[in-house]
């Protein structure tokens, strides 16, 4: 074997400054390698699900348009959070459950610090009878949510309770309460936990703390009645029971899903908005919305009847009557349109026409106690006492707890 006489590696023999440079370069290379690995780990684009295909064949045109537009935005920018989130919520708002869940998965992958996506995904799973799958997502949303947004944690606790994990549920509710000692839902959760363990004294303590809080007043009162009865405090239980009967229903709890209502389009979305506008006394806006709606949906009797409602709210009875006529023309079989027409006529004291209209409503919907009652009122106004009594009796036969026809019958009997 020939001896290697080639010069040795310059790095081995070079000056010290050069050696240091090579060491430094080596260290830098290692650091860069680690940085590359870390960056890859942290920022490498997530694997996203395929953009879902959505069957829109039987869907309202406006709804279909909204979904198509949202989907196209995802196609255009498949690695951006906004389009995925928008598509998910539009689909959710219109109950396209499976594709909405796919989109929430994508949104969560692109925006993994945001509790909204796992939360909304979890609500769909829970509504879709998959509580165990929903649990992990509620937990994840709860972990991501800021302390002053307890809803994901509350839903997590409530689902834990539902699944019989009382200790875990108690911990979650206690933590929410530690952050906000006035949180009525966390307190109710603790009461439920105690109830589920048959710890009635503890349940009563929690329930008593929130018994006058409007969001849960009726529910709390009902539960207090049962708990007091369990504790043998029968008189107190009876008092609570009677209080329960007098209370109005608890308002629905505000939820992240409420914002989905804003995304609802199509005829149902417009009808809901018009009702909401009337509720806010924004009559002119409601009229404008429904006038636009009947142009867009000219063959929809629901659109015309909703227009009639806005016109009636405005006090324009003639226009309201015209709109109801149109709705009846489009859906002559519907009893509720006739009933509404009868009410409008009755309001204008056109009793004979109203009575005839109520009869037409009853012919289509024979179990309508309200129509019988109003028919009775019209007949009374027309002087037909026998006919009126018969109509009131029919109303009571259908709805024996209706107070109005009973009062009218009593009045009739007194004046006979």
């Amino acid at each position: 074997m020939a001896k290697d006489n080639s010069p040795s590696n310059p790095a081995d023999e070079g000056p010290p400054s050069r050696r240091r440079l090579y060491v430094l370069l080596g260290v830098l290379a290692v650091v860069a390698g680690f940085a590359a690995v870390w960056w890859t780990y942290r920022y490498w684009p997530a694997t996203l699900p395929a953009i879902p295909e959505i069957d829109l064949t039987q869907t309202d045109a406006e709804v279909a348009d909204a979904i198509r537009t949202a989907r196209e935005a995802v196609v255009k920018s498949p690695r951006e959070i906004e389009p995925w989130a928008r598509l998910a919520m539009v689909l959710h708002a219109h109950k396209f459950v499976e594709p909405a869940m796919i989109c929430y998965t994508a949104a969560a992958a692109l925006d993994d610090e945001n509790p909204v996506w796992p939360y909304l995904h979890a609500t769909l799973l829970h509504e879709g009878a998959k509580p165990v799958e929903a649990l992990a997502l509620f937990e994840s949303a709860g972990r991501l949510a800021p302390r002053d947004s307890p809803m994901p944690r509350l839903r997590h606790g409530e689902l834990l309770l539902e699944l019989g994990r009382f200790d875990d549920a108690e911990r979650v509710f206690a933590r929410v309460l530690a952050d906000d000692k006035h949180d009525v839902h966390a307190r109710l959760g603790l009461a439920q936990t105690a109830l589920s363990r048959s710890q009635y004294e503890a349940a009563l303590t929690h329930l008593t703390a929130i018994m006058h809080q409007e969001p849960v007043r009726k529910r709390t009162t009902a539960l207090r009645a049962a708990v007091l009865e369990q504790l043998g405090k029968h008189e107190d239980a009876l008092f609570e029971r009677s209080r329960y009967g007098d209370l109005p229903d608890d308002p629905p709890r505000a939820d992240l899903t409420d914002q989905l209502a804003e995304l609802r389009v199509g005829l149902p979305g417009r009808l809901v908005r018009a009702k909401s506008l009337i509720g806010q006394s924004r009559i002119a806006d409601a009229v404008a919305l429904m006038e636009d709606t009947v142009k867009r949906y000219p063959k929809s009797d629901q659109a015309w009847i909703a227009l009639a409602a806005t016109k009636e709210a405005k006090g324009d009875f003639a226009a309201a009557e015209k709109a109801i006529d149109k709705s009846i023309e489009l859906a002559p079989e519907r009893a509720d349109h006739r009933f509404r027409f009868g009410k409008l006529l009755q309001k204008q004291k056109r009793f004979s026409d109203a009575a005839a209209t109520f009869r037409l409503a009853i012919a289509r919907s024979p179990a309508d106690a309200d129509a019988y009652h109003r028919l009775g009122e019209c007949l009374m106004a027309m002087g037909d006492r026998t006919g009126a009594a018969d109509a009131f009796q029919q109303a009571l036969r259908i709805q024996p707890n209706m107070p109005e026809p009973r009062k009218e019958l009593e009045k009739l009997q007194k004046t006979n």
Partner: protein
Amino acid sequence: MATIRRAMLILGFVCVVCVVTLGCRQGPVAVAQTPPPWFEDVTDALAVDFTHDPGPVDGTYFMPQSMGSGAALFDFDNDGKLDIYLVHNAGPKSHSKNRLFQQQPDGRFKDVSAGSGLDFAGHCMGVAIGDVNNDGLPDVYVSEYAGGRLFLNRGGGRFEEVKESGIDKQIWGTAVSFLDYDRDGWLDLVIVNYVALDPTYPCTTPAGGGRDYCHPDNFKPAAARLYRNRGCDKDGRWLGFEDRTEFAGLAAVPGPGLGVLCVDFNGDGWPDIFVANDSKPNHLWINNKNGKFTEEAVLRGIAFDTAGRAQANMGTAWGDIDASGLSCVFVTHLNNEYHGLWKQKPRGRFQESAATAGLTKIGWRGTGFGTAFADFDNDGALDLAIVNGKVFRTGAPTKSHWDAYAERNQVFANNGAGVFRDISESNPALCGKPNVARGLALGDLNNDGGLDLLVTTIGGKARILRNVAAKRGHWLTVRAFDPALKRDAIGAQIRVSAGARRYHGVVQPSQSYLCSHDPRVHFGLGAVDRVDGIEVQWPDGTTESFECPGADRNLEVQRGKGQLAK
């Protein structure tokens, strides 16, 4: 993203460990064994050929269609073998008439509908069985949307409709039950009503693109009605019923009722009335013993779940699931809720306990209708069966209209302490194929001590599931018969002592959803092969003790032939 990545890394590590561990393992990997099934489908073998007609699928989405129809298991000819009555819901003008099947000596069934009088068409919902005129022959009431009919059993397989029975045409009769609420020896009748339906009102899916069946909240709830049996005149002529709804107090609080349970809820020996209301609080009408009732569901803790929320209450079941001596109430709900199990403790007070009974932990939930507590394997603990089917469409449109509503059924085994385990997967005959099930009737069709099932579906075949549970325990079936009244003692409470246990049951066939069960009370006794004694509390409150020659038999106890308790 980061979470998923971290999870993937951990998962990868775990996989490697698993691969290494399994690779080093000697011998075959153990595989969990599926327990043997409890049921086999014998519908064809028993020659029961009934396909339910819910009426035309014409785009109107007529709401009564989606509520389905029930059935009855009863011995109309008193030959000791259960017969079957199945009803349609296609309307009075339909050609689909209700069918009566008589059990033959070989256990097969023969269609004896023609000429029976029960072969009529209607929007038929529920069936209740009871001998209203105390002539020894069980009579039939069929509830209907906008109707309802009473038939007297005239013997020889003939039933006669009573046109002037005193029972009005109902708004929408659903669950129906006989009871003797005034203890006069004549069976009274409760007819639960659902809602005052406007059949012309269209409901749509939330997407606005298609029609669907309505939610009951779209209509006003209707009141349950109570009819008192007037008994016979001095010439022995039966006088029919009188409407006591208003007097009794039931008219005061209407509710969209679908289920009913007429048993003694507060332990005073008088029958009370529980009405399961769809999406509204349940009603518990406590018998005041003077012909009047007071609604006490809220007070007694049975109106709501533990959050004080009303759920979609539908089918009902009653039974002592944990050998506590106190029965609990089970009520089926929608698939986005959980079913309600109200345990009784102390007597007359209830606590919703589905979670502690293991009934909420299941990974999948159905929309439950018919249901029954029954000891299918005779181990001494009541198991639970639920039949399912959705009420609203979800997902993509299906080829067949009713497929969009189909779900599989479920069965749960009780561990003896009142904790249930889902064993649906090992019962493919009952739970394998999705169906739009509504009714579930329970009875021992072949008198072998194993409880069989009859399932009704919307637009599908009624199915008979024979109990084939392996290694069933010992058993006893008791018929509580009152010879003076010539009929089953509906409302009688039966207590059986066997070994160290005491078992409780009640004669009340009207349970589940729109169905009437076998009126006999079945007890699984487990390994105990003797019966120490039977105690019967008759509907009038008197109690008698009976000796029992042994287990594994169908026993009839007759009032007056036992030993009266002090």
